[in-house]
């Protein structure tokens, strides 16, 4: 009888442990806006990623000077841009590139943030003090300007370099967040027990502390993904993002730096601007739902 009870408790505990993703899913299902956001986002990203099957990249990126700035028509659903390229095709390609880069930057930044945050949180004391001071300093840098300076200075500029530069300036907040939760976690019994048993520090950090911070990390990654896509398109808009030849959603909007295009050729930039807006809103709605799921008190479902 007692045995059964213990087993039941253990099973319950295990369920609670695994259920963050299912809790998030439940939360999203119960929040109408979040569910709509998820469906819209999956549609947009899905269409963008399978577009190469029915749309040749060569045709989309080929310059055709005889048909520049054509208004929307049956052939070109959203008209053509400054090089006579189909705007609708560019939009799909751009959405795919922007999303991919946003994800890459978020993953890389999380990797840096996790490493530094876990070290500071796990060791605490003087290590934590030093890391915190450095983070304090890094967080007040005018990062937008410095990213632009880096982009201009780097030789052999490529997409890969761009991702690297952006991620270098995107992890400070994450490290802070993980550090503060890690500091609370290190006082808990399971960490003490593990230390007493002689488990190496890196194993405790990676296999014991990290899983317990996973919900926090997932929430943070969802929310910063939107920010990173915004920053990438913004930089490309200013002319310091993706190298020319790799269209991003920002590339189309960049054409709107010319007042004539803003005013008279709305089909070039407006769809891209609205698409960015929709993607950002969707990711944020999903992020908010996931955030509520991570905190039992705030759950709606």
């Amino acid at each position, binding site marked *: 009888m007692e045995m059964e009870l213990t087993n039941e408790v253990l099973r319950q505990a295990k369920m609670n442990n695994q259920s963050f993703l299912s809790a998030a899913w439940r939360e999203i299902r119960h929040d109408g806006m979040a569910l709509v956001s998820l469906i819209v986002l999956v549609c947009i990203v899905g269409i963008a990623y399978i577009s190469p099957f029915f749309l040749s990249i060569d045709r989309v990126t080929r310059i055709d000077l005889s048909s520049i700035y054509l208004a929307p028509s049956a052939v070109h659903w959203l008209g053509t841009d400054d090089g006579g390229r189909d705007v609708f095709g560019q939009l799909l390609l751009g959405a795919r590139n922007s999303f991919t880069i946003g994800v890459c930057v978020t993953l890389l930044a999380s990797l840096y943030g996790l490493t530094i945050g876990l070290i500071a949180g796990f060791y605490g004391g003087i290590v934590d003090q030093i890391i915190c001071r450095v983070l304090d*300093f890094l967080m*007040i840098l*005018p990062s937008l*300007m410095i990213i632009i300076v880096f982009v201009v*200075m780097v030789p052999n500029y490529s997409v890969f370099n761009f991702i690297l530069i952006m991620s270098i300036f995107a992890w400070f907040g994450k490290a802070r967040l993980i550090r503060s939760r890690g500091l609370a976690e290190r006082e808990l019994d399971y960490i003490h027990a593990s230390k007493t048993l002689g488990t190496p520090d890196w194993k405790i950090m990676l296999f014991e502390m990290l899983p317990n911070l996973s919900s926090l990390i997932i929430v943070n990654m969802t929310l910063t993904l939107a920010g990173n896509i915004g920053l990438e398109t913004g930089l490309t808009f200013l002319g310091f993002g993706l190298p020319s030849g790799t269209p991003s959603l920002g590339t189309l909007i960049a054409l709107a*730096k010319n007042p004539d295009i803003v*005013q008279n050729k709305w089909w070039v930039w407006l769809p891209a601007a609205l698409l960015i807006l929709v993607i950002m809103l969707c990711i944020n709605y999903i992020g*908010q739902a996931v955030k509520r799921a991570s905190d039992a008190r705030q759950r709606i479902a």
Partner: protein
Amino acid sequence: MLVFIVRRTLLMIPQLLLLSILIFFLAKQMPGDAVTGAFMGKPNVSAEQMEKIREQHGLNDPWIVQYGRWIGDAVRGDFGQSFVHKQPVTQLLAGRIENTIWLSVATLVVTYLIAIPLGMIAGRWTGSWADQFIVTYNYVSFATPVFVFALLMLYVFGFVLNWFPSGGSVDIRVEEGTAEYVWDKLKHLVLPVLSGSLLLTYSTVQYLRNEIIETKMKDFVKTARAKGVSENVVYHRHILRHSILPIAAFLGYEITGLIAGSVFIETIFSYPGLGRLFIDSIMTRDFTVVTALVLISGAAVIVGTMLSDIILRMVDPRIRLG
């Protein structure tokens, strides 16, 4: 309190030092130095002559000497020569900084004018349709990238409706010093300011709403109500006074957002301020100007954060340093 101010101010010194060293090395990595810049387009100057001039200007000294000279000049307000504009960087900045300060101050004022009433309404009538609307607006403003929003504003109000001028800081036809001039300047500010401030309201609304919801359950508010103080006075005097002070302190923290925002907004509205100067200078590879701008922005953020920390501490003594 005094100890706190002194400690916080001292903390600023290593930050400024580190920032300047970082930017110095960044500047050293940028192609071209003062000498190549000064002799650009003069092919009759040989490499040996250039080397001699470099030696004279001390460009071959060890980095610590060069850094000392550079930072010494910068503190005295000398940022060197702009290669492109052929004039001292300080002079160039002086011509632009006024516009950016106007833009930033106006943006901040409008942000608070919008955010404080919204936060108060949402906090007082929680769950009402007004609150739901404000919360939704807050979600949207948090998610919207500033350049997308600014472009939409420009398109709708600048071109389609044609209510406001679409670019520049003032019409060249109006005479300086007249009332019309001021009026025209204000008209040029409307769109850039609204684009910036409608998105900056997020943190203030969020904070004020949470604070008011929390404060209205507190004992001193109950006491006031029990004494028969009218609901309006409870909210405007008792609760607001309690909740609004920290908001004033957030001013300094907003500077980072203002600087990043001004780069986009000034580009979109072709507003002649520092943000646009930064983009123009980096496009034309005018690196002395770029360096000066990064240094000034960084220093502005550091000083702003310090002021905010100090004010926040004055308002709420429970807050401790990191």
